[in-house]
């Protein structure tokens, strides 16, 4: 299976969909025949991005989250897109331990985990427009760590 496979999932910004989104990505990534560890890495990273869209992007209010995935040449690309409040200072947001919502017991480690568990992480955001997180990871033979 070396040809490209692509999917887009759009779902409601509700916390019970965090688990759903992880399961969907894992089921799709399974086509690249990942190890259990690689699958756990991807699930964790996606969970962080989706949770961020729900609690930061949409501030727990209704909204739609889009997840775009491509499998190609042994690599998975996951894009998590919201049309929420956006991020004013991306560099600051990505600093380890920075969180704008300590009252929710957020640890400020979401972006750090996405970086640690995926090969690459890119964040695009515009205030009032929304946020897009793009993550890539090479699967299988080509170990990343």
């Amino acid at each position, binding site marked *: 299976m070396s040809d490209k496979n692509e999917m887009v999932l759009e779902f409601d910004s509700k916390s019970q969909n*965090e688990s759903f989104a992880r399961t969907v990505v894992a089921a799709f990534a399974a086509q690249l025949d990942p190890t259990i560890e690689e699958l756990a890495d991807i699930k*964790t990273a996606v969970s962080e991005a989706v*949770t961020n869209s729900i609690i930061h992007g949409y501030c727990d209010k209704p909204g739609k989250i889009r997840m775009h995935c491509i499998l190609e040449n042994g690599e998975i690309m996951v894009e998590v897109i919201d049309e929420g409040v956006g991020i004013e200072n991306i560099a600051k947001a990505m600093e380890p331990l920075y969180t704008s919502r300590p009252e929710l*017991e957020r640890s400020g480690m979401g972006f750090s985990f996405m970086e640690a568990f995926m090969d690459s992480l890119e964040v695009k955001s515009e205030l009032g427009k929304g946020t897009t997180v793009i993550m890539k990871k090479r699967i299988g033979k080509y170990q990343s760590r």
Partner: protein
Amino acid sequence: MQNGTGNSRSKFSGEEDVVYEVYQRCLIIRLNGELDHHNAVRIREEADKLIDRKNIKHIIFDFTATSFMDSAGIGVIMGRYRKVIFIGGKIAVAGVNMAVDRILKISGLYKIIEKFDNVEAALKAMQR
């Protein structure tokens, strides 16, 4: 959250039961299932109620049956740590599998909490 109807119900959604046990002033939280932001909200509430009512000092998180954890889990542990540290309490983790271990390592939490093979070992060390 208990699924009283039993038998052939599927357990797909990850809403498995978190089990709380109190031994003297030590609270054991068995994190069965998935520990994400969705479940963290509930666990935080239930744990804090017990901590206040039972005058809890030490907390042991048991990850033996944890199938998933992300940074929301770090928040749950850190939050409980802040609650008990002022009264000289300690936090321990037990039954940590490889995935959870990596997350705890990256988070730096091992600087302030101790890891034990199982709950019994943690209990013994805490009650010393």
